[in-house]
């Protein structure tokens, strides 16, 4: 059997705390008792392995899932999924979802008074390649209001869900866009105490992956917990 990945402890301050009262929904949902330290056993060091059958080639193109093209600024979002040892995570399942260009989700519970786009569902899925690379083609999501506090607006973001090697590598996060003035006001983004670490959630504009006359490129690299226990040969 192959060696299982090894996981270091989470460094305090690099991840949000469960209770962050500025984010109102955390108050009644964050655990109140101390978490119990779990030894990393077989159950945590293994995890589900998703195959190519779980994604189709078109799943990573969010602009081509309907009869017409969605409205909005076309973007190519790409990056690498790496482990803590800076090695690529291969075959990682990356799921993504987002609002449309007007800031409205294709979801029955989203009551924001902004138009739905019949050509945009906002759902993407892909597997990383042998270099840990992924790419989505989409449109830039709009900001939208929410009920957290008076005149609260979420900065534009794309939700990401990633499965690496081993359950402890599981990550669900959000990618933001550079220069967004709403970031400074957003309690979800600001739930991470370390300035340097929260900025890692902001993608960077990248002329290199910008396609002339077609789409703006944004780069978003992701680091998962865990370290490959079988280093590649030099």
């Amino acid at each position, binding site marked *: *059997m*192959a060696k*299982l990945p090894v*996981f270091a402890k*989470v460094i305090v301050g*690099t991840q*949000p705390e*469960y209770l*962050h009262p500025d*984010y109102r929904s*955390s*108050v*009644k*949902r*964050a*655990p109140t*008792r101390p*978490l*119990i*330290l*779990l*030894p*990393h*056993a*077989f*159950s*945590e060091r*293994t*995890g*589900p392995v*998703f*195959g*190519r059958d*779980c994604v189709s080639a078109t799943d990573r193109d969010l602009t081509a899932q309907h009869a017409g093209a969605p409205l909005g600024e076309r973007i190519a979002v790409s990056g690498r999924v*790496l482990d*803590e*040892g*800076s090695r690529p995570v*291969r*075959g990682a399942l990356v799921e993504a*979802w987002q609002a449309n260009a007007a800031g409205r989700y*294709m*979801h029955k519970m989203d009551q924001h008074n902004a138009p739905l786009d019949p050509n945009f569902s*906002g759902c*993407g899925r892909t597997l990383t390649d042998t270099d840990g690379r992924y790419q989505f083609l989409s449109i830039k999501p709009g900001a939208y209001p929410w009920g957290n506090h008076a005149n609260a607006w979420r900065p534009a973001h794309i*939700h990401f*869900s990633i499965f690496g090697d*081993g359950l402890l590598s*599981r*990550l*669900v*996060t*959000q990618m933001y866009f550079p220069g967004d003035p709403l970031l400074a006001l957003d309690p*979800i*983004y600001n739930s*991470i105490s370390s300035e340097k670490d*929260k900025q890692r959630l902001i993608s960077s504009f990248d002329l290199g992956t910008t396609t002339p006359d077609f789409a703006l490129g944004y780069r978003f690299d992701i*680091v*998962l917990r865990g370290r490959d226990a*079988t280093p590649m040969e030099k």
Partner: protein
Amino acid sequence: MSYVPTPSQTVGPFFSIGLSALYREKIECEPGEGKCVLIRGRVFDGDGQPVPDAVLEIWQACETAGGDCDQEPARREKIPLGFGRIATNERGEFQFNTVRPAPRRDEDGLLHAPHLVVVVLMRGLLRHLLTRIYFAGETANREDAVLNLVPPERQQTLLAEPTNERASELSWDIHLQGELETVFFEA
């Protein structure tokens, strides 16, 4: 070289857009491994209100289901063995079918009673929660390396209790807060 893992953010209320394609309410295991069980429960918040927008991911580490990191993606199984993903309904309820796992002794000699790992995601959780489901009445529970780290008075929050005579249906709730607060793990 060492990198710090990317920070987590909440899954938010609209996760079904991105996650529903891989909802799995029946966990696939190797055939003939054990008894089929149905586990049902509800998720409650700190006010005792049901949580209608949670999603649970179940991981059951069958020997063959994980760890084989060398395998090329193309050869991997269509539905990952041992994996479940279930959203709660408007009443905060969830249910899934699986095969009751066997006890396992790790390489380090520690005994693990039959259990499932549960990842809990929802709006309001900036990081997912991690917990385990054990089976009430299982004799191996007494020796389990993880259950024994839990104060005795809180162990019952991890136990799925049978709701029929054959113990083919079990009940296990999640309480995010309060007197019955479920034991969550830091890993």
